[in-house]
């Protein structure tokens, strides 16, 4: 999941008796499955929570380009390079859809960018892990995009119209991402013993960080309860994590790779796997900024923002001049 631990402003779900008539009408619309659109009335906490959630999601798409971009120049074949380039371009597109959705809530693009660069807004913890070998690109597509899809498919039904529409568009494109990752893993797993070892090593390193993507258990979280009442969160973190494990284990078996969890076992009663939790102290350390690549990621974004300034300003200046020229020639013609 690309948005982790998004806090609402409230202290849990507001009881019906404490709601203003406007809030009650709003909740009734959501309960009836209506979509909320930008200019319509919404509680301020709904707006602020959505800005945080959609913003964090957008930042994740943008920062998520970095670990994969790392391998574009070193992809093993021209075809793999073209595919990876297309995937990374998609991530940029997904970031843009989401930034536009966030902007409909009254925050500007520059404000969002600056909040990312200053560390005020977060992005998914997963992108603070390095991609050390080509097999990691396979593991990222298979596991990271797989986990993202788990979260994004239900969000297509989210209550905020622009967010829902962005999610629908993203989900359409995301399945290519996961399949190309699995395709790389298949090639590696069926390759030389050394290639297979690389594939296993990538799975070993990305398994637990992928489980962390769903965030810690939130079954008792007041923030999650409010977000679920507003339908900006559809499933609990644990539900999604379970679904992800159940889906992924057979895929690993097909590859002939083993999940790095000695306690993993099928539980007939619940119809799912029992599995070990990731190390949550590592998760909190990464969120705080102490993961393997946090500093590199923000430095890369800061550099892109600074180095691009003359270009953004130049195009704005050109647009202003061209408009003045057009206005002048129109006056001359009249």
């Amino acid at each position, binding site marked *: 999941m690309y948005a982790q631990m998004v806090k609402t402003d409230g202290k849990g779900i507001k009881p019906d008796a404490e709601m203003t008539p406007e809030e009650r009408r709003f909740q009734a619309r959501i309960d009836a499955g209506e979509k909320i659109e930008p*200019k319509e*009335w919404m509680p301020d906490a709904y707006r602020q929570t959505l800005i945080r959630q959609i913003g964090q999601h957008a930042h994740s798409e943008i920062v998520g380009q970095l670990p994969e971009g790392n391998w574009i120049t070193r992809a093993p074949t021209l075809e793999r390079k073209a595919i990876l380039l297309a995937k990374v371009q998609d991530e940029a597109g997904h970031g843009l*859809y989401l930034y536009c959705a966030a902007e409909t809530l009254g925050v500007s693009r*520059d404000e969002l960018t*600056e909040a990312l660069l200053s560390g005020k807004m977060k992005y998914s913890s997963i992108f603070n892990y390095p991609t050390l070998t080509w097999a990691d690109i396979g593991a990222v597509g298979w596991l990271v995009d797989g986990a993202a899809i788990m979260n994004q498919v239900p969000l297509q039904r989210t209550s905020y119209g622009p967010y829902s529409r962005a999610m629908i568009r993203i989900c359409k*494109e995301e399945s290519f991402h996961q399949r190309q990752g699995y395709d790389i893993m298949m090639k590696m797993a069926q390759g030389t013993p050394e290639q297979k070892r690389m594939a296993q090593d990538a799975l070993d390193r990305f398994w637990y960080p992928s489980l962390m993507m769903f965030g810690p258990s939130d079954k008792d979280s007041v923030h999650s309860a409010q977000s679920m009442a507003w339908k900006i969160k559809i499933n609990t973190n644990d539900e999604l994590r379970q679904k992800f494990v159940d889906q992924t284990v057979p895929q690993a078996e097909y590859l002939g790779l083993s999940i790095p969890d000695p306690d993993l076992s099928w539980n007939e009663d619940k119809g799912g796997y029992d599995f070990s939790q990731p190390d949550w102290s590592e998760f909190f350390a990464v969120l705080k900024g102490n993961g393997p690549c946090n500093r590199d990621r923000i430095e890369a974004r800061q550099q892109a923002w600074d180095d691009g300034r003359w270009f953004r300003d130049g*195009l*704005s200046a050109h*647009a202003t001049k061209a408009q003045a020229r057009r206005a002048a020639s129109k006056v001359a013609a009249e």
Partner: protein
Amino acid sequence: MSSEWPLWEVFIRGQHGLNHRHVGSLHAPDAELAIRHARDVYTRRNEGVSIWVVRSADISASSPSEKGPLFEPSNDKVYRHPTFYDIPDDVGHM
């Protein structure tokens, strides 16, 4: 802080014969680049045969509070729908 590029709304004709449809928005310094960005952001998989862009600031929209006065009057004009009229089966398809 540099000034932000203005926001544009993007409309795409998916196939010949269909209407242009609103697909989303983007930032660009001018119309020409807005079309190029729209190509990159919204038509990476053959989604379009034609693109329109318009400055978001130039769009006038009805307000949600006007929903009643604007759209309710058509609710009680059921005679505008063909199903309002009972035509005997004997007449055949009409």
